């Protein structure tokens, strides 16, 4: 009995750093942030409760909020499916017993290793309207390329294009999933007279749906939090064409010192991500779980 109690106490000792962090940097801030979101707060003066006014302002008379919502949603709906599909297709190709698999995998994964400001600087050149490589190549085939990041009609599309550079991150996971498919399933499919298409449709694809699901979810959550590229490459412009949600939130908080409003924005972001997560889970009927895999994840 005392052994049990001892172990019980010891366990909480092991968890002490996490418990402290959980209370100090999660529960506390969550409560505070909920409170600030109902207040007018500029840090200098104490918060003044205003009820739901921040939320009302957002939806009733802040066109920039609605714009940033729309921009981020467009980005999510365009970039995530593209990254998932293209990454999956490349993984399928690499799964065809190609030679030099390690080299290919390195090439495709490498861009996923680097990120941040250095990469953003690189994109500014790649899509430079005059001397950038994309327009230089288009010029070779006689097309006058658009102004990319500096054209309000193209800036968001260009950011979506740059996100495709990271297809390697998901690809490695798909490939690992494909290589984990037991060969007896392929043999069974072949015995039933299944060709390449059937092998893909009835073995590879169903067996890798959990991996696709995981990447889809991570991708959606990540795309709602895009910040660095929007800040460094376009700084929200031109004409607010790339005013991503988190950039909008950052400006409200750290440029205009509207901490109450920014807190309300953060809570709306939380609910958006929550709703997307629930939708993805609720519509996950297409995901195939092998029974032993289900046991493992329990």
């Amino acid at each position, binding site marked *: 009995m005392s052994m*049990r109690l001892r*172990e*019980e106490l010891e366990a*909480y000792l*092991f*968890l002490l*750093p*996490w418990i*402290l*962090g959980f209370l*100090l*940097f*999660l529960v506390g*801030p*969550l409560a*505070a942030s909920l409170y600030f979101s109902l207040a007018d707060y500029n840090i200098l003066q104490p918060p003044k409760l205003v009820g739901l006014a921040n939320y009302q302002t957002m939806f009733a008379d802040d066109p920039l909020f609605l714009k940033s919502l729309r921009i981020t949603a467009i980005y999510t709906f365009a970039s995530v499916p593209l990254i998932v599909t293209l990454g999956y297709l*490349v993984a399928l*190709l*690499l799964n*065809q017993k*190609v030679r030099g698999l390690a080299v290919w995998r*390195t090439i495709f*994964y*490498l*861009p996923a*290793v*680097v990120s*941040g*400001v*250095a*990469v953003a*600087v*690189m*994109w500014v*050149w790649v899509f430079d309207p*005059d*001397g950038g*490589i994309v327009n230089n*190549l288009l010029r*070779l085939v006689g097309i006058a390329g658009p102004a990319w990041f500096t054209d309000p009609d193209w800036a968001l599309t260009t950011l979506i294009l740059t996100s495709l*550079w990271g297809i*390697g991150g998901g690809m*490695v*996971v798909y490939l*690992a*999933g494909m290589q984990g498919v037991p060969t007896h399933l392929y043999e069974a499919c072949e015995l039933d007279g299944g060709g390449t298409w059937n092998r893909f449709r009835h073995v590879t694809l169903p067996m890798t749906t*959990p991996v696709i699901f995981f990447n889809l979810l991570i991708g959606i*959550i990540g795309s709602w*939090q895009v*910040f*660095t590229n929007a800040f*460094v*490459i376009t*700084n929200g412009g031109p004409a607010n064409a790339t005013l991503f949600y988190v950039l909008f939130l*950052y400006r409200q908080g750290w440029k205009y010192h509207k901490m109450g409003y920014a807190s309300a924005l*953060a*809570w709306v972001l*939380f609910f958006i991500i929550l709703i997307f*997560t629930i939708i993805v889970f609720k519509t996950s009927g297409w995901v195939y779980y092998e029974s032993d895999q289900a046991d*493992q994840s329990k």
Partner: protein
Amino acid sequence: MSTQLQSLPAWRQRRSVHMVMTHTLYYLILATVGTMLMVPFLWMVVSSVKAEHEIFSIPTTWIPERIRWENYTHALESFPFFRSLLNTLFITVSVIVGRLLSTSLAAYAFARMRFRLRTPMFVLVLSTLMIPYHVTLIPTYILFTRLGWIDTFLPLIVPNWLGLGAFYIFLLRQFFMTVPSEMNDAARIDGCSHFGIFARVILPLSIPALATVTIFTFLEQWNDFLAPIIYLNSPDKHTLAIAIQFYRQSASGAGWGPVRTWAHLMVVSLLTMAPCLLLFFFAQRYFIQGVVISGVKG
């Protein structure tokens, strides 16, 4: 190949020809996509030793008129590289150490210890994965302001010593579960305490998982932009990521747009990316493995 083909019956020959053609197509697609992904990297390397007027030349040139190594020395003179590097290294290493300690302790408790709140607390850990960083950002920022920690490294480091990073707790717990429990029991019979088992049995057997946590944390911290830009004000505290952004702004005069010192900017960006690339080349196994542990089994 051709002699082999001739010795096969006609239908096998047709099939082989078909196979060769599809495989050629595969390699063509892989090579095209691979080139598209690598070109921006290559261009950065080439541009870093070019003269300013060559960088945006039309059409793009791939061989510089003269290799200007002096770009590197000039860039390091005008850009506070070593100070920013030291700052970035200090933050990154501190976060890695704190995260390894705090998350592995928590993961051990969840994987190996018996206590009544084990399941509910683990569910709690997982549920924190869904909360976006931005929801707690504002109150945390205000907390650090009150503590007088703004413009110090503490806001970037301390939370990570307190088990923040539920994903890593999950990842390590999954790995610790795979260590055979007989080793646990044997150690316990020998009178080993839980801390003894943790330090002498589990940790040494979990080097691959710890390496994965280290690598992911390194990349995340190295490229982080939002937290440093919020917490670090004075230039001598800047990390590489923000230092590049400031360098860019000061070089171009205006907020953003073409800068006069592109070659230097390329040098600095490349030097910032280099540690991530080197890490990838030397620890590729742990990268792939980490992606697979988190993606396929998660």
